[in-house]
């Protein structure tokens, strides 16, 4: 089942600036995909369009079989609330809330009762390795810990897809590697689809599939050929074009 589908999507910012040009791709449920490319190539624009935060100039964006171009602002927000998780480069936790309250916020939006909310939030924090740190405020946590809280917030309501915009950009390599393994584990255990934007080589090594973006177009679409668990420490990974990979799997 395809959870994201871009059909000839173009995004212009005014007459002279085109961020995306006729971009088309599909992402299936459970895929662990990275959008690679230099700054300004269009990675964040793809994430924004895929999450319904922005609308394409032309073309169609489907998220969970819903045409985002035909939905109003409230419907898009509710779709994100119920089916999407977000992890940002700058963590973007609410500074006045404790770690557990930050996670609870997502559940409060869905109207989960307070007791259940707290239990689920604590469980999510435990899942991302933050057990016992729930009462700390973001300012009392390291960057890696804050990002873990952000991940807990993103996954606590069991979304179908998580968008992560440069999630390791502000972290040191050891912390980044641990977080990537966490993403990977969540992807495998919970079958959550992940779509990253990143130019971190470590992210690119761990991703199942890499969509390389350049000047607003998809330059390449490749799929990993070795088991995922070997990826983080691997120095070189063999990849094949996605189309070829799909046909092999089908065979």
């Amino acid at each position, binding site marked *: 089942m395809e959870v994201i589908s871009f059909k000839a999507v173009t995004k212009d910012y005014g007459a002279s600036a085109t961020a995306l040009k006729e971009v088309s791709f599909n992402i299936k449920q459970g895929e662990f995909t990275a959008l690679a490319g230099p700054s300004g190539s269009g990675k964040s624009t793809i994430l924004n369009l895929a999450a319904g*935060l922005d609308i394409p100039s032309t073309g169609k964006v489907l998220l969970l079989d819903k045409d985002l171009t035909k939905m109003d602002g409230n419907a898009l*927000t*509710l779709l994100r*609330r119920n089916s999407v998780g977000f992890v940002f480069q700058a963590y973007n936790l609410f500074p*006045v*809330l404790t770690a557990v309250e930050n996670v609870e916020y997502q559940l409060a939006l869905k109207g989960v009762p307070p007791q259940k*909310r707290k239990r689920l939030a604590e469980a999510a924090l435990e899942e991302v390795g933050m057990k016992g740190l729930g009462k700390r405020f973001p300012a009392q946590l390291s960057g890696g810990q804050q990002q873990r809280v952000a991940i807990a917030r993103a996954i606590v309501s069991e979304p179908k897809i998580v968008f992560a915009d440069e999630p390791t950009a502000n972290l040191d390599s050891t912390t980044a590697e641990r977080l990537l393994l966490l993403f990977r584990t969540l992807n495998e255990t919970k079958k959550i689809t992940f779509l990253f934007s990143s130019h971190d080589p470590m992210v690119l090594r761990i991703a199942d599939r890499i969509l390389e973006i350049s000047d607003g177009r998809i330059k390449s679409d490749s799929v990993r050929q070795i088991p995922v668990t070997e990826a983080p420490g691997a120095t070189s990974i063999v990849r094949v074009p996605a189309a070829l990979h799909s046909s092999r799997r089908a065979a």
Partner: protein
Amino acid sequence: MDFFVLKLCWKNIWRNKRRTILTVNAIGFGVMALVGIYNYYDGFHEQVIHNVIRYQSGHLVVGAPGYQTRNLPSMYIKSPAKVESWLSHRPEVKAVSERVIVQGLVSSAQGSANILFMGIEPKQERRVTRFAANIVKGKYLEAEKGKPIVLGKALSKLLKVDVGSKVVALTQGVDGSIGNELFRVVGIFETQSDADKSLAFINIGDARSLLSLPPQAVHQVSIVLREETELDKVYADFQSAFPKGSHIQIMTWQQVQRPLMAMIELNKSANRLLMIIILFVAAMGIANSILMSIMERTREFGVMMAIGTLKAEVIQMVVVETMLLSTVGVLLGNFLGIAITMYFNKHGFDLRWLTSQSIVVQGTIIQTISYPSVRWQNSFMITTCIMTLSLLVSVIPIRHISKLRAVEALRAH
């Protein structure tokens, strides 16, 4: 989003403690000032009205039509028996005093003055006005022979007379004759009002004699009620019992004391103006605080919307924050305002340090010391105004958030 939103809002308003404390103090100070001033003036007005009722007119005044405005001695009630009878059957009436009022000259060997002679039945008058309690020398008037007179202290100084001295009253009777009587000073009163230099009490029979009035004639019947709330009912019933053709007119103390009522209304208007100014300043404080707060949090609002918070929910949160901020200020202000009122209710608030002389309106003493009392309706009114204003001020953040797009807000710093 239940109690969680309230908790988040509460935490949000304390993000910048210094700013919030300044705003809360501004609202609190404004509310305290308004509650204090409104309570002070209510107590002050009540005191003035009380003085008018207990030193002058009573709650209601009955007289010949037009007497209260023209004060002509020839305008008197010829036979007050019907009025007396009607009043005696009314349970609402506490006390009644019949008066004959004479404008004339009082003189002694040392001086003279144009004054008002108030002819009274001393026993009746004691129950209506409180002059008897203000005797500073000698005694109050009694229904005795020998033409006793009670003077104000300032008048006695002017005439250079004391208890036991004799004074002459000179006036023109209703028949054109000259009334001329010798009175003996039996007492001196002091109220620290105009009455001290312009009023003297004599027996009602002596007053009739001075004016050559018939034996039953009275100019004024002053009525004190058991409860002021019964005023309208007694007034209406009296008018039904004594219609226009009966040549008897009843007036409420408000009708008699129009200048005083005008002064009270003027005070109330000034208070309202003060309230508008203070509310405006408070509104500016709230608006500034909230606007600063939301400008700093544009990116955060973007995150909220990105992870599934509806714009309406973000707006709701900011409105709740505004109301919470105002609520804290209003609670603080009411607490302080009520505490100050209670203190001055016990110890009195003396304006002597602001005014060098006693204030008199239409002969009524306005005491410089006032005892404000806690009026919950004042607190309620001021609280309602501030909270309504806070809601109106919320339009500023509502407009800002309504225009926000999550994707742009996320790029804000």
